């Protein structure tokens, strides 16, 4: 069940997007998300959708795979849509009991649905084409200027990559402990909420202990290899922009200009 969540997962394949410098992808994703929320025009959304489709085709990640990831956030989407639908002031279109649906509400709800869908597909496209290590590398490199104001950029990036690395390890550990307790007659599926919560204790206690043990071992291993933070640390594979990366920045700039122009001349 836990394994079905594709949000934030990496999809192994060979494509232009996979080869692209992670910094470009990070900047592009951020710019794309901001553009989604700034633009206020249907044609703008069409343009954004076209850009997204182009990127998806370039990434060679099956669309099916992305839609699977969407399932986990359907609830959040519904929540946002319903609230916008009923709580936006404006001229009422339909009203019953204490609820009113206004024309502005319908528009806001629709906009919200479009924005959220593209936001999630856009950002999962980034994680699908970038390994967690690259992701944190890129983030560290982009946030580097913040070091001047004493932000511990390297440490934060290191914590992030360790946290990401621990996800599959802990999933595996959970699976093992679950099986071991099932072999001792544990039942994780039946009973009411309270019984289910109680049944989790034999799973959670060993899992926490395992997590601490792993963390301890890792800390020891890092110290044994003289890890002392980011000061003076060099990279085995330093991030270097190539021509294609500059070209990608160019495409991104073009997209942003188009978005602004479209938003100006063709508002809702």
């Amino acid at each position, binding site marked *: 069940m836990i394994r079905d969540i594709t949000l934030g997962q990496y999809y192994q394949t060979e494509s232009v997007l996979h080869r692209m410098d992670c910094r470009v992808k990070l900047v592009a994703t951020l710019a794309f998300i901001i553009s989604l929320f700034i633009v206020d025009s249907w044609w703008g959304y069409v343009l954004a959708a076209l850009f997204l489709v182009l990127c998806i085709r370039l990434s060679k990640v099956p669309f099916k795979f992305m839609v699977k990831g969407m399932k986990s956030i359907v609830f959040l989407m519904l929540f946002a849509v319903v609230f916008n639908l009923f709580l936006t002031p404006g001229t009422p279109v339909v009203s019953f009991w204490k609820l009113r649906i206004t024309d502005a509400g319908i528009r806001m709800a629709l906009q919200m649905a479009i924005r959220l869908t593209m936001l999630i597909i856009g950002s999962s496209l980034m994680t699908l084409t970038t390994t967690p290590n690259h992701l944190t590398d890129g983030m560290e490199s982009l946030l580097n200027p913040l070091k001047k104001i004493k932000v511990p950029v390297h440490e934060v990036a290191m914590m992030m990559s360790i946290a990401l690395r621990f996800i599959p390890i802990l999933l595996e550990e959970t699976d093992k402990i679950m099986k*071991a307790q099932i*072999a*001792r*007659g*544990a*039942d994780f599926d039946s009973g009411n909420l309270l019984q289910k919560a109680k049944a989790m204790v*034999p799973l959670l206690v060993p899992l926490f*202990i*395992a997590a601490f043990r792993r963390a301890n071992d890792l800390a020891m291993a890092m110290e044994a290899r003289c890890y002392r933070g980011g000061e003076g640390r060099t990279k085995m594979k330093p991030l270097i922009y190539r021509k294609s990366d500059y070209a990608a920045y160019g495409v991104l700039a073009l997209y942003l200009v188009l978005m602004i122009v479209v938003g100006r001349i063709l508002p809702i």
Partner: protein
Amino acid sequence: MSLKLEHVNYIYGSDTKLAVHALKDICLEIPDGQFIGLIGHTGSGKSTLVQHLNGLLEPTEGKIFYDGRDIWEKSFSKKELRSNVGLVFQYPEHQLFEVDVFSDVCYGPKNLGLPKEEVEARARQALRLVGLSEEYDKQSPFELSGGQKRRVAIAGVLAMRPKILVLDEPTAGLDPKGRDEILGQIAHLKRETGISVVLVSHSMEDVANYVERIVVMNRGSVLFDDVPREVFGHVKELEEVGLAAPQVTYILHQLVECGFAVDRQATTIAEARDTILNALKTG
């Protein structure tokens, strides 16, 4: 109360590109009261196989019968199966969670829905079987030594009174002393209760002294299934699949090559000693 596997196949991730055929056409019978060693190199499918024995994994193809009944039939209670086929995983001490040793051992029988007195009687007996006296009852399981923790975990499964006990690498990560203690305890337990024991290991040395039958796995199939002396006769084939016969087998084989009339099929050190002394006397 035998457990029978018929043409069991298991494929991990069968609907993805990364499908792995972990078990190939396994046919196996575990009768009452037998001590079986299940041996194979890392990745040979041992652990996958043992998870089929108590219904944790469902075979992709093939059937498993307990006491003549298909365990994947809807009416067959998995809980009942798991109380009859006790499975001790690798590093079982990682599953301990209770505040004290005694309560942790009580967890299994409690899950079976037994009355409190019965639960405690079973836990008491299980702890005695693994050689832990009452002074440990109120200790936290996390304060014990590695070997002791493992014995508590094994007791946790024993307390369910299984008819078949399956142990997946019970000696992994223990020092030689801890290893001998655990193996000795298992052999003792087998003698005292008469249950079937399946001992999974990658070391011939470990099992040679204890088991009456050896099943050798290689790449998901059963390579040999016979009494130890027969299995150890296939030294070459065993080495080809990354295993080794016990040291004594090698010594005896070399002695035969040097012209001594020793019995090559002796599997334990005691047997080897006898046959060498015999050869010296008569020669």
